[in-house]
């Protein structure tokens, strides 16, 4: 496996993405809006009934669960890019000449993975910093301390979010082999958010304690297992002959 070849493939995709406004919008604007909106909710929620907002005891459970929004974003945003990266090549029928170059299937797949992974992960980590800073700003008065950064947020942002993004990319490779237009790939890829949304809802319903570092590490372990399993399926799907003869 020559990383230089994968990087060439990824660099080309970065150039293509720069010309697609909706990719830029989804990658940057979506997490940015969430990173600002959540602290706004923390600031203004609960004021309608005349109270002084969300009490400190509630904030301590609400803030960790809010970090899971970024996990949901990590499950969705790479899908948008991966759809362009893979189905886009199918639509433009550019896979055949690409596959005829002296690159291996693994190098092309890794290149596509890097292209679909790096921009969203950079955007999500960047906007998560904004989220943490703004949340601290609006909750410090009520909590008396800065809630972020903390160990659990580190586990979510630095371990679970990247794993969710990788899972999203892998899922999209598999979806791409069965669909022939970008929009369908994106719509099906959006289903990748369901497990993460499920975790968030489970936390809100009290089924999972998302404030527990142990629970977060268990979820991360499960994600890691799914990532490894999907990697095998994605590699089996992304084979030259399969792509040219069986991809629809």
């Amino acid at each position, binding site marked *: 496996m020559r990383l230089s070849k994968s990087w060439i493939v990824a660099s080309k995709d970065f150039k293509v993405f720069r010309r697609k406004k909706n990719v830029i919008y989804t990658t940057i604007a979506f997490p940015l809006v969430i990173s600002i909106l959540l602290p706004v909710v923390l600031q203004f929620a609960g004021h309608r009934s005349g109270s002084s907002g969300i009490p400190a005891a509630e904030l301590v459970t609400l803030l960790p669960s809010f970090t899971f929004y970024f996990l949901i974003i990590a499950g969705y945003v790479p899908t948008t890019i991966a759809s362009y990266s893979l189905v886009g090549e199918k639509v433009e029928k550019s896979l*055949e000449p690409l596959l*005829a170059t002296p690159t291996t299937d693994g190098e092309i797949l890794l290149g596509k993975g890097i292209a679909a992974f790096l921009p969203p992960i950079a955007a999500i980590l960047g906007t998560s910093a904004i989220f943490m800073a703004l949340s601290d700003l609006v909750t410090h008065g009520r909590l008396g301390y800065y809630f972020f950064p903390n160990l659990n947020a580190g586990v979510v942002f630095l371990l679970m979010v990247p794993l969710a993004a990788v899972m999203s990319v892998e899922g999209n490779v598999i979806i791409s082999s069965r669909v022939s237009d970008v929009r369908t790939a994106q719509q099906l890829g959006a289903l990748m958010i369901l497990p993460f949304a499920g975790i968030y809802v489970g936390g809100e319903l009290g089924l999972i304690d998302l404030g527990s570092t142990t629970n977060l590490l268990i979820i991360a372990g499960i994600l890691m297992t799914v990532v490894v399993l999907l990697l095998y399926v994605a590699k089996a799907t992304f084979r030259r*002959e399969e792509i040219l003869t069986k991809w629809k």
Partner: protein
Amino acid sequence: MIETEALTKRFGDLTAVDGVTLRVEEGEVFGFLGPNGAGKTTMVRMLCCLISKTSGRARVAGYEVGNEADSLKIRKLLGLVPDNVGLYDDLSAYDNLDFYGRLYDCTEAQRKENIKRFLDLLGLWEKKDAPAGTFSKGMKQKLAIARALIHDPQVLFMDEPTANLDPESSKTVRDFILDLKKEKRTIFLNTHNLDEAQKICDRIGILNTRIMAMGTPEELERSVGGRKTVVQLEQVSDAVLVALRKLPIGNAVVDGNRLTIDVTDPEKENAAIMDAIVRAGGRVQSATIVGSTLEDAYLKLVRQAK
């Protein structure tokens, strides 16, 4: 340069290519003619190590097709112009070529030189910064050819390079292929276009899953059986017909004052035919040798296969 031996490809129950044996020499332009679904694209894909063979053997430049270690080496020394151009519409012509140059390990200097050279040759240099998506079909096809040549490949595979092009663009592409031929590159050309095959190819294989015939365009024309001598007379008399029947020649068909005579070697037989006509009192206005065309050969073989 390219050798195959009983090369076969099956997709489930469907046999796409059936026991093809051929040899293409270095610097030769070899053309595959065949109807849709004849296996032309499958052949190219197998030789480019894009899909596996079911059985048989194939070698490109001495490397074994199907051998994992040789696949990358084969792909490095060949260029492919697929039936769909497959360009990146959002990238400029220059960036499309630069991307492929990098994948083929060309240095920056080589890339710059070859991009300029081929875009210039194909009349696209002025448009080098325009997105490929804004190009006409003909320009896209030219860009796809430049892409296949960016690393100066020894072997060039071209799958229907002039399909769907207007006559002017087709001619430009054909002329360019003829220029490449002068550079002694080995070219493997799939085409539906008989005229194109005749003008460009040194040898042609007629493929319909199996090789139906193979040879130079002239050999294929002759293989259909024959040529005809058409003689226009002032009047076709019975005496002329009787005289012709005495000659060891093929059938003679009368159409008004025109005689169409089947001959095998007109250069030798025509003198005797003219002599017999004149001796029988016939007055010859004109005489023409009409050969079977490549189209005749192609249609005959493809119909036979059905």
